[in-house]
């Protein structure tokens, strides 16, 4: 799936897909859910921490 096709399917811009893939834009919960819906996956399958921040380990 191309970035443009994914952007159209989720109703956002291709530039936002680029920003999300780069890992420097945190989507809203609504957008995360819409993207997960496009892939027919759960949100935590699509968005997850590689390394949880220290504050979450406690």
């Amino acid at each position, binding site marked *: 799936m191309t970035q443009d096709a994914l952007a159209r399917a989720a109703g*956002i811009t291709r530039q936002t897909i680029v920003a999300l893939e780069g890992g420097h834009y945190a989507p809203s919960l609504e957008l995360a859910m819409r993207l997960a819906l496009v892939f027919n996956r759960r949100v935590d399958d699509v968005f997850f921490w590689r390394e949880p921040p220290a504050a979450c380990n406690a």
Partner: protein
Amino acid sequence: MLRIAMVGLISLLVGAGLATGTGVWPVRPGLIGLSAMLVSGLVVKRHWQRLRAVGADPGSPERALWHGLATTALVGGHLFASLWYIGPAMRLHSPLVHDTAIDNWTMVLGALLSYGLTRDREPRRDERDRLFAARGQRAGYIALIGQALGLSLALGYGAGTVVERLSQEMVSHLLISTLILAAVVQYAAQLRLYAIDNRHALTVS
């Protein structure tokens, strides 16, 4: 960042330069400004079309911001310089002020026409664009408040200086100038956010 500053500064200087030609040059400076906007609009449109082919073109809001920065700074530069040349005792119904106004409004027309050239035919915006717009508006608001405070102090406590000689028309044009400058600050601040984001994307990919 440098590109944003250059576009803003060059547009301001070109606008200010055009103000020197009112009633002097054989061609109306307003028409020169209008032509410059149309030509640069066409050039930028072709540039973005080439970038689109490689998937690196700016989104609809970013395009509108580049256009807004260049044209608002050009019209603003012309207005600021014209106000400087006309002087504090400005009167609306004089040949020089009429000519200046015609030139300035011709450039506003050029800004509208060039927007038609550069705008995205399939405009799309999302939450990221709205986030950047909110931050840009905050910067514009701060610029506006800062200018309003400065102008209020100058008008209130500037007796005995040049402020005392300001005509009613000049005061109203100074207020318009603050709006134009605030808009330029807002566009530049928003474009800076896109630039930071794009730089990150290039670093990661």
